[in-house]
Structure formats: structure tokens, C-alpha cells
């Protein structure tokens, strides 16, 4: 389309747009704005639900209990009712585990400040730097002595996630978009867990350790955030499930 009249030819530094061009372009620009907003809005509505994990950002609470090493430190805290114990996974600030924060002798009673992260009944504490101290075990506090329940060998299919992000610090805290972060967190010592969802979407978390009970963090990094099948011994430590398996036996399920 070539306008014959040079005055109908658009020149940017000349004020205004020729009428013929203006009447052509104005509705197209309006349409373009509508399309841009619609596509962005549509993408928002079609994205996955980020889940209902909670990170009580900015809220710190006192916690106390014994440390159980699986091999990552897990806070075993007596329930206020005195009927049992709750187990909290632990992490430090940022993408770091809490291994180095608990240096006392086995059986020591710890007091600490932290921020809760929780999802699907599983909780983690992000420990406030410098808040950890060893104190006298309160009168009446009963250390759990029972051995873990051995639930036998199971083959489980799921995704390795870093427990801190998935439980609520990042939303979403799993799948490909989050993979680099999960790698960084697990590399930094955050406990890796196998996330398994049943057909109804109910989530179960298995703390991953090797067949000797040692940490697997560095060995699972290439397999994080990918569909995976793991066969191993499952143990129940109170309300926490642990999956013992050599990472060399993990099987990635590529599509």
C-alpha cells in the first residue's frame, strides 16, 4: 500500500500522524494492547497451582528439643500434651542446611528461635542465626527411646525436592522452573526429600539417605526435580519417614 500524497507519508519528527495512517493504526494498537493483556491474563489462569505451603516469613518462635541426626539434624520436640513428639526438619538462612548449628553431645537439650515452614502436615524450622543454645533438659521431658519402625522395601515414584522450598519458602518449590534452586539448596545442606503423590494428590515425604544412613545431597543433584523411581528400605522415625537407598540405584523416568 503506497500513499501517493507525500503529506500522507509518516515522518516521525513531524508532529502528528497522517489521518489515513492514524485511522488504520489506532484500532490495531488498541487491539494489540488487548491481546497482550489477554495473553498475560490467560497465562496466569492456566498456570499450575503453587500449592498451599506456608512460610511464616518475619515471624520467629521459640522451639526446644533434642536433635536426632538422620544424618541431617531433626528437632525432636515433646508435644505440649506430653503424649508424644514432633519432628521438625531444620535449615539455616538462605539455601543452607542446619548441620553445623548443632554441635552438642548426643542427648543435649537445645533451645532455639526459628521460622516455621509447613505443608501437608510436614514442618521445617528455618533456624535464626545465633539463637541456638544448649540448656538443661526440662523436668518431665521424656526422650523418645523407641527404635524406628522398619516398614520394609518399597519402590516409590516421585520427585526429589529440597524440603525447605517445597514446604513453603518458594511457591512453587518443585519441577523444572525451580530445579536450579533445588540443586543449590540441596548442595547447601538442606535435607532432600522424595515427594510422592498418590492418585488423589495426597503427598508423602521421604527423607532421603543412602543405604548406610549417610547424606546423599551431593549424589542426588543431577536427579533433582525430575521424575524418578527409588527402591529402598523405609523407616518411620516418629512422624518422619526415611528412605534408605543407594543413589546409584535411583532410576530417572524420562518422558
Amino acid at each position, binding site marked *: *500500500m503506497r*500513499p*501517493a500524497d*507525500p*503529506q500522507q*507519508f*509518516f*515522518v*516521525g*519528527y*513531524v*508532529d*502528528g500522524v497522517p489521518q*489515513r*495512517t492514524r485511522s488504520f*493504526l489506532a484500532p490495531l*494498537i488498541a487491539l*494489540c*494492547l488487548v491481546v*497482550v*493483556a*489477554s*495473553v*498475560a*491474563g*490467560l*497465562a*496466569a*489462569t*492456566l*498456570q*499450575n*497451582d*503453587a500449592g*498451599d505451603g506456608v512460610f511464616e516469613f518475619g515471624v520467629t518462635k521459640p522451639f526446644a528439643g533434642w536433635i536426632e541426626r538422620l544424618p541431617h539434624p531433626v528437632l525432636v520436640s515433646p508435644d505440649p500434651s506430653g503424649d508424644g513428639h514432633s519432628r521438625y526438619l531444620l535449615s539455616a*538462612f*538462605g*539455601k*543452607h542446611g542446619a548441620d553445623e548449628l548443632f554441635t552438642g553431645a548426643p542427648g543435649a537439650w537445645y533451645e532455639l528461635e526459628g521460622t516455621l515452614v509447613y505443608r501437608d502436615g510436614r514442618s521445617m524450622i528455618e533456624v535464626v542465626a545465633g539463637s541456638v543454645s544448649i540448656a538443661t533438659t526440662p523436668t518431665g521431658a521424656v526422650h523418645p527411646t523407641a527404635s524406628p519402625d522398619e516398614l520394609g522395601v518399597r519402590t516409590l515414584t516421585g520427585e526429589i525436592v529440597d524440603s525447605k522450598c517445597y514446604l513453603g519458602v*518458594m*511457591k*512453587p518449590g518443585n*519441577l*523444572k*522452573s*525451580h*530445579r*536450579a*534452586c533445588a*540443586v*543449590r*539448596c540441596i*548442595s*547447601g*545442606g538442606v535435607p532432600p526429600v522424595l515427594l510422592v503423590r498418590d492418585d488423589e494428590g495426597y503427598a508423602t515425604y521421604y527423607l532421603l539417605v543412602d543405604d548406610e544412613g549417610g547424606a546423599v545431597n551431593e549424589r542426588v543433584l*543431577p536427579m533433582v526435580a*525430575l521424575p524418578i523411581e527409588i527402591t529402598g528400605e523405609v523407616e518411620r522415625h516418629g512422624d518422619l519417614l526415611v528412605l534408605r537407598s543407594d543413589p546409584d540405584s535411583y532410576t*530417572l523416568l*524420562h*518422558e
Partner: protein
Amino acid sequence: MGVGYRAVGWNRNKKRYDQVVLVGVLLSIAAFVVLSLVTDKGLTFETALIRSTAITAFLLLHVILCIGPLARLDQRFLPLLYNRRHLGVTMFAVAFVHGVFSLIQFHALGDTDPLVSLVTTPISGGAAGFPFQPLGAAALAILFLMAATSHDFWLANLTAPVWKALHMLVYAAYGLIVMHVALGALQDQRHPVLLAAVIVGLVLVLGLHLIAGFREKGSDREVAPSGTDDLTGWVDVGPADEIPDTRARILTVSGERVAVFRDGTRVFAMSNLCQHQNGPLGEGCVRDGLVTCPWHGYQYRPEDGQSPPPFHERVPTFATRVVDGRVWLDPEPRAAGTFVEPSTTTNP
């Protein structure tokens, strides 16, 4: 046009252009954030920011890439081309926010330097295990290079061909970003409409470029000299009255595109490449007696291809003759700015 450098040579059209761009950016980000909240997707603020800026930058890039071929196909799109550099810089700024927040979100506060972490995410087999973030980072680096050199200062100092080659890297950036999206977000977000939207965008960009390319193919055909006697070695351009008044016919001689204009009874020719951004002068027109580039309005005098004082741009000129109503062109270019008497036709 300008004789000196200013940060931005503002005028009314540029201000309006930027206002519309700003509205588009805000609309896109707001639409994404509001609908994420309304549909209760449970995103954190950081995720909403990262995603809304990602989709906004991606959409802007599509608009940027479509403007070029659209303006070649229909000159009524030229106002969109005029200030496209501001659109590009805006797109880079939005993409930069996406990139920086992603770097902080996914790589900071860990056991490794964030930039090292960015390029060392383990590779596993298949698309799901291929690290997609370095692809986005590479695209962002290209976009930075383009945004940083977008000013006319760089255009003049790098020269138009080098500057243009540099800015053609936008296609490499687009390819990297499509892969970044395909190997990243689309691995998680499996709704088929999202995949379809990316494909539609790709087809739109490629399709418009192919159509515009085919349209131009005609003028790329080399025209061989066919003159005899005193026109030996000259090229037959065709009947003068087939060149629309104040417009040009573009033909390729000796491997170079030449624009042959008719302005009433005057016929003259010059290089088709505007000295500013190598815009297609032959798709411009003669306005106020001057050849005017369709891209940014740079102007050249018909007789010597020089911009009128105080401007100093100039392009090569070519000799023309009109014989029996047909225009003939000497394919030998004269040095840029050389005076060549326009020929005349008796049939305006």
C-alpha cells in the same frame, strides 16, 4: 534527524509512542498478577514478579520482531517502526528485572556464587534435565548489548552496517528465548494452550518475515545492462510513468540496491541504503523536494544524495537518462554526495 547527540531526541510522536508502550507493559504485568491472585494460584510475590515480567518481555519481543516485516508490507505500520528502539530498550528493562530476580531467587544465598551457579546446574538426559536458565541469560546478554548500543552515538561510531549486523542478533536472542521457554516454563506448565501460544508467536514472527522476504525478492533480482550505442552498459529501469510520482522503483545492479525516483518530471537515482540505519530509501518518498527515508525521516537532496545543511549524511548517486519514455540507469555508482543532474521526462 540531528546534528548532535542527546540522550533522547524527544518529540510528540516519541512521547505518545512511549506512553502506549508503558500502558502495554503495565497492562500485561497487571493482568498476570491480578488474575494470579483472583484464581488463587498461591504464588509468592517474587514468583509473580518473575513470571509477569517474563511473559511481558516475551510478548514485547514478538511485537518488536513483527513491526519490521509489517512496515515493509504496509507503510501504515511505519509509525510503529519509528521509535522501535525505545520499545526494544523497554523490553530489555523488563527482561532484566526478570533475569535479576530469577538470579536472586534461584541462585543467591547458596554455597556457590550465583553467576557460577547459573551456568553449573547439572545436565540430565532429556529436555526435562537440560538447564534452561543459561539460555535466557545468553539472550539477556545479547539484549543488553543491543540496548546499550541503541543510541545514535553508537550507530554513527560503529557505522550502520556493523550496527545493523549487531542488532540482527535479536533473532539469535529470540531463538534462545524460545528455547528458554520451551525447556523451562513449558516443562512445568503443561496446559496445551500455553504451548499453542508459543507456537502461534513463532509462526507469526517467521511467517511475517517470510512473506516480507518474498515480497522483496523481486527487487533483489539483478538487472543486467541492456543498453546499446551511447547507453551501452546502462540498465533499463522501465517506463518512467510506471514509477509512481514522488516514489521510487528499487532494483539491484552490480549487487547493490538502487532506488530510482520520479518527482514530477524529474528522475534521479541513489543508493537504496539510508546512511542512518541502512533503511530502504526506495520505500520512502520525495517530501518537500527531498528523498525521505521511511524509517526515521532522514532526508537527501535528489541531485547529490546529501542531507541538507546542517546535516552531513550522504549516499552514493547514480546517473539516469530518460529515452523515449523509458528510464535508463548507469550502474556505476558515484561517490557519496556527488552531484548528478537529474534527468527529465516529458510525461509527469
